[in-house]
């Protein structure tokens, strides 16, 4: 192995060598630089690999042949090697990225770059306090030099502010160093004795050293200077400044916190948390891309700092978690800064230029996912571990703050992503092959990192999970035509279904069928899509992968990872809709919020065990169980869009594409239902403050069922109507589930199946109509029954089924419902459910009437029937609905038996095709028989009498001896339930929308107000810095005494 010292030597040597070159030979200088950086990377990487494989042992390098404290020593262990590799590689890539500007400014700038990388590597490796100071000063000087690379003149001001602040920091650091030396008699970090916090000189010195280093990490709020640099510097340098400098400095901080003893850890935790929260909140108000990245950098580094403090006693675990976060952050942030170099304009919306190059969009998504801690990236495992640790130590407020801040961060990032996907850019992409290569290398590095990190986690390696890989497969396949991809996708789903059904209980089996096989069925509709349909299949299959994994998961980790997969996949899917940007954002925000509630719930339940089997939920300590229940339920209820947490749903479902709406409505909502099933199955009834939580769920279900239906009745947009109806239907299912009896669960199951079928069918039908009419507003349609008879039939069957009118399958649900409520003591919630029933007629009738009946409009007189591929699944659903209505036993009997084993009872008796309960009978075949017989008889009678009826046209109506004026004024459709609105319109009051808007506005307002704090004046920044130091000192001393 070559000596790690060569990293420093190579950097310095090359920098000197550059000085020997002629001014004109920039090209040579650049190659020398790249070669030096390459060599440094090579050395660092080779050490990393060898250390990781255990081929070499960590080494200490003693300079001047003396041991500390008489000389400086450097250390090369696995963490050092890894981080040095990260730094060197980012340096190398940034050099390539900045090629043009480096050449423009000549060899001096390259030398400065080399010195910077060298100094960063030194900072990582050194074990000497003063040496640390020297490297930091070198970094400051080099950074200030590189800031000048930018062609933005504002960078000058930023650089100077940076220097001012650095001066202050260096004063603090030097004083700290000298007094620490005075106290310990050595400058070697390893010799520094653990110092208790207190009003002693040694403590103050330690504090100064620590705070000075922490200040280098740009802690909130003493970080205005750094943000200015991020905003104005060359993106290549910003990448270095954020990724490499941040990484190296953080490691230095870690070293010192390790040395200073456990007393100081809370300092890091506190500052880290404040920074993480503050930076993310303030980022909400940003619309400048690079400044947003700056905020995000600050926040991420704050997060790692928090981990450093919080996990001070984790040993290797700390390196795993913090390292994962840090390297992810480095890669993602570098990648994003490089990307920002390709985006010419600076507004967030200008990132839409990336759409010119789909590969870059994938890279962008990768980086965002890495930062937000989504699977399979290391930050995901880190988040998992961190939250579990917090739960283990019962630091619940900390956990809450952390999760909320993480949520805000995700919201910020996804808001940006949404803008990039949906808005229009003002300037085209500044495309450059080498730039793209650099970005793609970063992206690849991110995936490789995940691949490496996964197996270390002690859980499954999420990158290699088959469904996930299958989803990823569609990234390269995206060049194929959509139809071929569709065939592959359907085949994949079917194969996965066939191979994974073994050993599942009937309940999971049904959910798996709905989610995977149902997905395959719905994908039939996707055959309608023409062209390539880029970016559809990966998210779709990601969502299905998540659902397939969800149902088969056994541990909380698998469950949560699957949950995140399906959330992210569905987010991308929803985002594809034409006007779905705000809705997709609110979807991902709510979903991630729900997911974090799940995470917290699982973590609390696990009590420090990182692997937690779902079935152990039943054995959670009784004092924790109610809280676990609340958190998990909140997570699942977000997904099922229970009233109050529902505001994301209508927009998301309504604005999604034709074949996506049924997926996210018919299938995705079932994920939440499945979660609730698992929850109540494992945890049963829980009481919090004497309130039975399942009763709360019953009420929530009833309220959702009722209000959802009322709101649906007031919609003008057909898909919104269906979306609200989903809320209502899920309310029923939740209600049944929370009744906590056999029939209640069967009811929920029945609703799961039925809702999947008829909601998918209706969404497809309405989507098919929209394909032809290009509108979702029902009052613009009318009279389409003759033009789209098949769609009409499917809507007709759908609404009869959904309204619960015999003989279709919705009636079965109602029948089970009545039998279920007979055995419960809860009575008052029934009122709402009873009220919800007839309201269902309102919106259902409106749906079918205003679209298919009434007066056809001029411009829609010639529309064609919905496309074949959109109709095909509908017809399959129609057939299924009729079969299921006649023979419900074919599915329900097994489920009934299974639920019977859980409750140990048998309320339903299946005799042949007759179902008897303790209270009544349901004989579907007889119902069908009687109804069909009567219907056919009456129909024949009518045909016999009226066979010669004259077919008339739309205006041949009696109109008080007048004639209609125009179809538009004759079609009664808009505000269809005006009388109902007059009476019950008060229920439309947007209580939860106002609440969530208020929360969002408050956050934005806070951010908008608080960011004024960064005045832009260098002196103010310095004052803030000093005040920050004093405040931290006072607080920490106050806390310690």
């Amino acid at each position, binding site marked *: 192995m070559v000596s790690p010292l060569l990293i420093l030597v190579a950097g310095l040597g090359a920098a000197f060598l550059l000085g020997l070159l002629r001014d004109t030979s920039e090209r040579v200088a650049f190659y020398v630089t790249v070669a030096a950086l390459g060599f440094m990377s090579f050395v660092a990487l080779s050490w990393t690999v060898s250390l990781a494989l255990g081929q070499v042992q960590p080494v200490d390098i003693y300079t001047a042949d003396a041991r500390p404290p008489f000389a400086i020593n450097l250390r090369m262990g696995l963490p050092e090697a890894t981080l040095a590799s990260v730094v060197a590689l980012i340096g190398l890539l940034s050099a390539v990225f900045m090629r043009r500007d480096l050449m423009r400014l000549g060899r001096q700038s390259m030398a400065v770059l080399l010195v910077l990388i060298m100094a960063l590597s030194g900072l990582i490796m050194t074990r000497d306090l003063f040496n640390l100071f020297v490297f930091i000063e070198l970094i400051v000087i080099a950074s*200030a030099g590189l800031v000048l690379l930018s062609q933005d003149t504002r960078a000058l001001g930023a650089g100077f502010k940076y220097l001012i602040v650095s001066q202050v920091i260096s004063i603090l650091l030097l004083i700290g160093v000298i007094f620490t030396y005075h106290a310990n008699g050595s400058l070697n970090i390893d010799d520094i004795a653990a110092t208790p916090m207190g009003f002693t000189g040694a403590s103050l010195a330690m504090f100064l050293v620590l705070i000075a280093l922490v200040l280098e990490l740009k802690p909130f709020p003493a970080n205005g200077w750094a943000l200015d640099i991020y905003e104005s510097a060359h993106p290549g340098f910003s990448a270095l400044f954020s990724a490499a400098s941040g990484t190296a400095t953080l490691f230095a901080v870690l070293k010192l916190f390790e040395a200073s003893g456990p007393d100081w850890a809370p300092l890091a935790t506190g500052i880290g948390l404040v920074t993480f929260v503050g930076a993310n909140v303030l980022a909400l108000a940003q619309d400048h891309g690079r400044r947003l990245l700056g905020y995000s950098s600050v926040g991420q580094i704050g997060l790692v700092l928090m981990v450093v403090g919080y996990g001070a006693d984790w040993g290797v675990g700390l390196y795993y978690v913090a390292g994962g976060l840090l390297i992810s952050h480095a890669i993602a942030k570098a990648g994003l800064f490089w990307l920002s170099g390709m985006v010419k304009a600076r507004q967030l919306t200008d990132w839409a230029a990336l759409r010119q190059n789909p590969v870059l969009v994938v890279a962008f998504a990768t980086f965002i996912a890495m930062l937000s801690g989504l699977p399979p990236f290391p930050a995901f495992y880190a988040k998992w571990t961190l939250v579990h640790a917090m739960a283990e130590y019962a630091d619940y407020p900390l956990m809450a703050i952390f999760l909320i801040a993480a949520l805000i961060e995700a919201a910020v990032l996804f808001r940006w992503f949404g803008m990039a996907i949906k808005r229009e850019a003002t300037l085209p992409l500044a495309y450059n092959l080498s730039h793209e290569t650099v970005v793609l290398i970063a992206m690849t590095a991110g995936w490789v990192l995940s691949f490496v990190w996964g197996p270390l986690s002690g859980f499954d390696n999420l990158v290699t999970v088959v469904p996930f890989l299958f989803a990823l497969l569609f990234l390269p396949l995206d060049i194929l035509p959509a139809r071929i991809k569709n065939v592959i996708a359907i085949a994949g789903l079917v194969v996965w279904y066939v191979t994974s059904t073994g050993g599942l209980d009937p309940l999971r089996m049904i959910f798996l069928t709905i989610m995977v096989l149902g997905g395959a069925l719905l994908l039939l509709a996707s055959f309608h899509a023409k062209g390539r349909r880029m970016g559809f299949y990966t998210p779709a299959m990601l969502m299905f992968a998540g659902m397939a994994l969800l149902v088969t998961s056994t541990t909380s980790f698998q469950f949560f990872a699957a949950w995140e997969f399906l959330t992210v996949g569905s987010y991308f899917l929803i985002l594809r809709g034409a006007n779905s940007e705000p809705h997709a954002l609110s979807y991902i925000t709510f979903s991630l919020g729900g997911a974090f509630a799940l995470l917290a719930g699982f973590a609390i339940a696990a009590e420090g065990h990182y692997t937690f089997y779902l079935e152990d939920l039943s054995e959670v300590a009784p004092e924790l169980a109610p809280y676990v229940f609340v958190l998990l339920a909140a997570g699942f209820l977000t997904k099922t869009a229970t009233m109050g947490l529902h505001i994301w749903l209508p927009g998301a479902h309504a604005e999604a594409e034709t074949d996506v709406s049924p997926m996210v409505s018919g299938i995705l909502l079932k994920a939440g239902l499945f979660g609730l099933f698992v929850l109540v199955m494992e945890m049963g009834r829980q009481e919090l403050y004497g309130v039975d939580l399942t009763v709360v769920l019953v009420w929530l279900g009833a309220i959702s069922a009722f209000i959802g239906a009322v709101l649906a009745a007031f919609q003008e947009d057909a898909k919104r109507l269906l979306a609200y109806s989903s809320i209502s239907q899920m309310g029923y299912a939740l209600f049944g589930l929370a009744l906590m009896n056999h029939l209640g669960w069967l009811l929920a199951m029945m609703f799961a199946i039925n809702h999947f079928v008829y909601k998918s069918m209706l969404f497809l039908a309405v989507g098919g109509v929209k394909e032809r009419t290009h509108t979702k507003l029902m009052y613009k349609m009318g009279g389409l029954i003759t033009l789209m008879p098949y769609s009409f039939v499917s809507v007709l069957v759908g609404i009869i089924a959904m309204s619960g009118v015999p003989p279709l399958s919705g009636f079965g649900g109602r029948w089970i419902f009545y039998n279920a409520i007979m055995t419960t003591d809860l009575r008052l919630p029934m009122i709402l459910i009873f009220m919800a029933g007839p309201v269902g007629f309102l919106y259902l009738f409106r749906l079918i009437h205003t679209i298919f009946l009434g007066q056809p409009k001029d411009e829609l007189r010639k529309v064609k029937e919905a496309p074949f591929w959109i109709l095909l699944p509908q017809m399959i659903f129609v057939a299924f609905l009729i079969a299921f209505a006649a023979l419900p036993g074919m599915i329900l009997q097994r489920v009934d038996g299974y639920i019977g084993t859980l409750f140990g009872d048998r309320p339903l008796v299946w005799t042949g095709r007759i179902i008897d309960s303790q209270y009544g009978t349901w004989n579907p075949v007889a119902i069908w028989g009687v109804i069909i017989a009567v219907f056919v008889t009456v129909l024949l009678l009518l045909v016999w009498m009226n066979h010669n009826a004259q077919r008339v046209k739309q205006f041949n109506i009696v109109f008080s001896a007048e004639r209609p004026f125009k179809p538009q004024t004759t079609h009664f459709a808009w505000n269809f339930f005006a009388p109902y609105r007059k009476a019950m319109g008060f229920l439309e009051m947007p209580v939860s929308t106002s609440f969530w808007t208020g929360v969002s506005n408050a956050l934005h307002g806070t951010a908008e107000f608080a960011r004024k704090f960064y005045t*832009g004046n260098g*002196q103010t920044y310095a004052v803030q810095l000093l005040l920050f130091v004093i405040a931290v000192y006072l607080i920490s001393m106050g806390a310690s005494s």
Partner: protein
Amino acid sequence: MNLVQISLATGFLLILLGLYGALTNRDILRMIVSFTIADTGVNVVLVAVGYLPGREAPILDTIPVAEAASRITDPVPQALVLTAIVIGLGVTALMLAYAYRLFRARGSLDISEFTELKW
């Protein structure tokens, strides 16, 4: 008050003076000068911490190596001071360079005028 305390006090006084100057003067050049003063203060503190009464400077030419450990003052702070001075010089030079370029670019040396980057 012994010499150490006096120099320490002086050092800190200089630091505070420098910081005060740097944070109250809007003129960039004055700020730079103030920082130099603060740097000097730090250096004085450094030296003062390493000073041991009654000992000699750690120059081994005049002192036998064998006795060095008991006769010289602590050499480390002195070494540190040297390095710190060099670095301080570097930073000061860089700041001056910045001041020059700022003046060239903007025609002003008032720090409060470079606030176009904010929020």
